[in-house]
């Protein structure tokens, strides 16, 4: 990963989150406490404000600082989880050169595993992991098969979309929505949706770089 790409992704993701305000807000109002959008917005704003500080740094340092910043600005359930994701990515960047797609896939997988640990959660519990886990799996599989970049990115987007959609019919067993029992059925999990938006946006951006 390149710092430039990370920073560009940061800006685009911020825009994508901002333009999903009403949707994210109403998802978290329905099965949570209504603040998921605000939390993400605060985190994104804090990251954007670091842009100039980050741009000269190496990717590992960039990701680590982003994680720490998210940790101290988002709060809530999503704060430590997203922070853990970034900080694990940073660790991967630091320990080995993450250059091939397979490297990225395995760093991504490690980060998702760290999120699972932090949240004591797994697939099927109606959380952001229902987006992240299938994406990680697809990523690993398709890079092993040496798939075309464009197809890969599209497949990741599809995995995210399907994972996110799959939360609709789930009962939540982690997070705030778990207090609802059956009443959570019929609503997409806000964290699953925001993760999907982030992945979708980054993949779109990556597609423009393929040329």
């Amino acid at each position, binding site marked *: 990963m390149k710092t430039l790409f990370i920073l560009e992704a940061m800006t685009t993701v911020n825009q994508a989150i901002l333009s999903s305000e009403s949707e994210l*807000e109403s998802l978290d*109002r329905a*099965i*949570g*406490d*209504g*603040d998921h959008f*605000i*939390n993400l917005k*605060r985190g994104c704003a804090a990251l954007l404000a670091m842009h100039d500080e980050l741009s000269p740094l190496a990717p590992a340092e960039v990701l680590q600082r982003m994680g720490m910043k998210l*940790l*101290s*600005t*988002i*709060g*809530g*359930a*999503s*704060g*430590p*989880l997203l*922070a853990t994701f970034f900080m694990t990515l940073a660790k991967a960047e630091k320990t080995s050169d993450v250059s091939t797609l397979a490297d990225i896939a395995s760093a991504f997988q490690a980060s998702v595993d760290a999120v699972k640990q*932090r*949240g004591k959660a797994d697939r099927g519990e109606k959380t952001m992991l229902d987006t992240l886990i299938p994406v990680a799996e697809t990523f690993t599989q398709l890079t092993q098969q040496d798939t075309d970049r464009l197809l890969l990115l599209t497949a990741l987007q599809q995995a995210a979309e399907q994972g996110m959609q799959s939360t609709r019919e789930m009962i939540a*067993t*982690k*997070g*705030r929505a*778990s*207090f*609802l*029992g059956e*009443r959570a059925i019929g609503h997409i999990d806000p964290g699953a949706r925001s993760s999907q938006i982030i992945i979708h946006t980054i993949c779109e951006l990556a597609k423009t770089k393929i040329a």
Partner: protein
Amino acid sequence: MKKFINNVDDLLVESLSGFAAAHADLVELHLEPHFITRKNKAENKVAIISGGGSGHEPLHSGYIGYGMLDAACPGYVFTSPSPDQMLAAAEAVHAGKGVLFIVKNYAGDVMNFEMAAEMLPFDNATVLTSDDVAVENSTYTTGRRGVAGTVIVEKAVGSLAETGADLAACKALGDKVNSRTASMGVALTSCTVPAAGRPTFDMGELELEMGVGIHGEPGRRRESMRNADAIVADLVAAILEDLKPARGTEVLLLINGFAATPLMELYLLYNSAAKLLQAQGLVISRSLVGNYTTALDMAGASITVCLLDDEIRQHWDSPVHTAALRWQR
């Protein structure tokens, strides 16, 4: 949404500043990261730190002071604070005997406090409060939510810490009080998160939400409005089903307002609940009625019953001097 605010982004800091100014004899406010500490640093005691999303005032800042908390870490409205706040607060108030975190059981609070605990260079332990019986505590859930019973945990643990007890003893008492405490709430209106600008849920003019959470999370069921005695009967039944107290057990009865319910109604609820408890042979020997764990601007209330024993009663009665609870000092 009509609220006394200047703008949503400044609400928290302006409110904290007002709190700190109004209680300058008791507390000190620190910003970025935000935390509030007891004015005169206690010596040689376990530091008791709580925190959580804002919007539940006086929880937790209102309980900082002699006999209760050493510090509180306020998050944004309904959003768990972040680990840097807990680390800075612990750094400020630790006094050589370790740090006890009192955390309401919500995924966000648990994870943020957990990360803080992992990073903390001092001995520490955590009491998770989980008194809300509206949540069926089946094995596959996150477990129950921590609600108004947290106040009783903070009072008891704060009192014990004041005696110089060690970290393990404080943690043990906190866990014991939590296990003997059960709460359930009911909402008559939604709350409105300032940043969202509109009610968290829609509620008909003749509806109520039985088992609502203190963040406006939906509860056990939506029902038609009923009279107070009928509502209280359901709340008390759920609480007693959980606690299963023997006849003759001594209890503390807390009627907690969610913010917008007048004291007049809270006392009516007390009257109704007390009769039911007494009819079950319970002895109400301690009482608390008022807004102690609120849900922004929600109209509604919760009932909390804590099964007392000599130890808990003694730590409830001991002197306390905070903004929101004060006696014998």
